[in-house]
């Protein structure tokens, strides 16, 4: 990593560009859980071989192998330091990036990625010129994560799950709609309340009364 423009910003900087290690870590955990589960499995007697443990054992090994391979891949190809209207390399506006990605993907099969597994050293200039593939607009915006929005959204869903049965579909569903719209950037909270209630009520009417789906009535049970 000697080619990084600003060397020595420490461990956190190194990891910040490699948050992708979450996925191999997840695979690692999955592989270990599968391995333990396979060893401790209660196998009914008299099962024809190969029994129920063979395939899980195979998958658990595969999980561990791919965890290692993916970790190596992430370590070698860190995410670019900066995205967007890049100050890192002068000529890299997002628009330009999208265009190059497209023209590059043009005549070749879409899966061809020049920036993966080629540079063993993971030099920044190489990744900088050819940002990650996967859709023109995605290329420019994939890197950054809006953490408050993600947390807000996941929190809203958790609240919805907790309140669905006690409060009933209409209230919980409206809350879900309102909360998601809010975390995704709606600026009209009061207007949204009406939209959300209209949405959940019409769903209750259409699907519960119309199609006969089973939705929890909650505290409004007597009203409907």
């Amino acid at each position: 990593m000697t080619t990084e423009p600003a060397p020595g910003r420490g461990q956190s900087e190194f990891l910040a560009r490699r948050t992708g290690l979450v996925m191999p870590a997840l695979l690692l955990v999955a592989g270990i859980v599968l391995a333990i589960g396979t060893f401790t499995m209660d196998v009914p007697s008299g099962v024809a071989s190969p029994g129920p443990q063979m395939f899980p054992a195979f998958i658990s090994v595969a999980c561990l192998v791919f965890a290692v391979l993916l970790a190596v891949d992430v370590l070698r190809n860190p995410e670019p330091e900066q995205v967007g209207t890049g100050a890192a390399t002068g000529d890299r506006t997002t628009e330009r990036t999208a265009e190059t990605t497209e023209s590059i993907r043009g005549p070749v099969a879409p899966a061809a990625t020049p920036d993966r597994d080629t540079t063993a050293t993971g030099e920044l200039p190489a990744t900088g010129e050819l940002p990650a593939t996967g859709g023109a607009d995605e290329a420019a915006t994939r890197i950054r994560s809006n953490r408050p929005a993600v947390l807000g959204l996941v929190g809203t869903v958790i609240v919805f799950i907790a309140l669905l049965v006690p409060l009933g579909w209409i209230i919980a569903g409206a809350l879900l709609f309102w909360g998601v719209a809010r975390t995704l950037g709606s600026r009209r909270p009061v207007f949204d309340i009406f939209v959300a209630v209209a949405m959940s009520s019409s769903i209750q009417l259409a699907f519960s009364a119309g199609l006969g789906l089973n939705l929890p009535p909650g505290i409004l049970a007597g009203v409907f």
Partner: protein
Amino acid sequence: MNQLSNLGDGFLTVLTPMNLLWVFVGALLGTAVGVLPGLGSAMAVALLLPVTFSLDPIGAFIMFAGVLFGGLFGDSISGILMNTPGNSTAIASTIEGHKMAQDGRAAQALATSAIASFFGGTVAAILVVFFAPSLARLATHFGPAEYLALAVFAFVAISAVVGESILRGLTSLVIGLAIALVGIDGMSGASRFTGGMPELFDGINIVVITVGLLALGEVIAVAARRGTKEEAKLITSAGRLWLSRKEFRLALPAWVRGTTIGVPFGIIPVGGSEVPTFLAYGTERRLAARKPGNMFGRGDGRGVAGPEAAGNATASTAMGALLALGLPTSATAAVLLAAFRQYGLQPGPLLFERASELVWALLASFFIGMVVLLILNLPFAPLWAKLLKVPRHYLYAGITVFAMLGIYATSSKVFDLVLVLAIGLLGFGMRRYGLPVAPVLIGVILGPLAETEFRRTMAVSEGDPFALVSSPISATLYIVLALGVTGLLVQRSRARKKEESRLMTPVA
């Protein structure tokens, strides 16, 4: 000509007011999700699965077919007018299509694209009508070893082609296979990885997985990207919506070539329409370069016609392969396979006998759907583009509500809602770090099948591994697979070299 009378019966089934309504609803929904970037037919069908459970299967499936093709019609509209392809299948046609729009020829680009979709889809559907029954008859000779070979073929093909790297594709596949392990093993009755929770004895419901990965995962990814996206400019399309005779003459060969390229890709599982659309684009570009009047780079209609025809042709034949072999070749096909299972149907050779009314009605609905879509798209394309003005936060809030509604409605279990959130987070992580989602679905759906067929083969042969490759069909499949992967690796490394040399000497 048994097929023709069967197809005639199919048309009679579809041409009832109620079923026509489903075709129409499917086409509308499909075009809408096609136009909107980030939403695709696979997600739409996944969201519809739970709420359509009370419909009769024929109505539901002809609606799904409408959604499938509508997505392919619609995805190029936003690509042409806004340079943001509605789906990965429209990236190839966006390159020239958007240049045409910038040049003031948006209407012609939209018309070329709509007619191309119609042409490719219809021609391929005709081929499916004639050849799918024979394919199904051939597949009745398949035993466990052959089905295992088919599943392995689908695993490797989709992992190798869909993702940006084979490593990432295979990683996704392994995630899918691992998810599918949860539940009681059907052959031995052993409970696997359930943690003793009765909710997990039946395994994780496929609807939970598809909705979590495709819908909720996408919504979380949208939240994560919030504030980083620039508004794309919408080019207004004015003028005639039909092609002049000269444009038509120019586009027709491209439609034919695109269809020819697209048809085989539906049968050999390479995971959807991305590869054929790019191949068609490359072909048109190379052919045009040889002759005068080459407009590539400035908006050439052939660059839209070829890929669009190829994409729809692939989708048609992929449906044929799904019906006849039970082999899903893309995320959408995998979701449709899940839909068949929801209705207690197993696509494959026996489907043509057991549910022939459904199969032929479905095939007939392809043709009707194409006509409906052509009518919906040709004159109204600019209107569809208005959909892009719906505020994103309402759109995705609505999707979240529908996802949760569907999950709760199928099982009435709060536990499934927790699961869908967990899988949604997994789907977000995969999107965030560049792992393709389609192999997970294929792994989840075909994993148990592969395991069962493997164990059956081994049980019958008493542990002789050569039984896996002893039949000519399975041996052929493995050889084709090996050749295909080798070819892909060679092509990729060659493409990479070409890119490198091209980057050294930048061409305008």
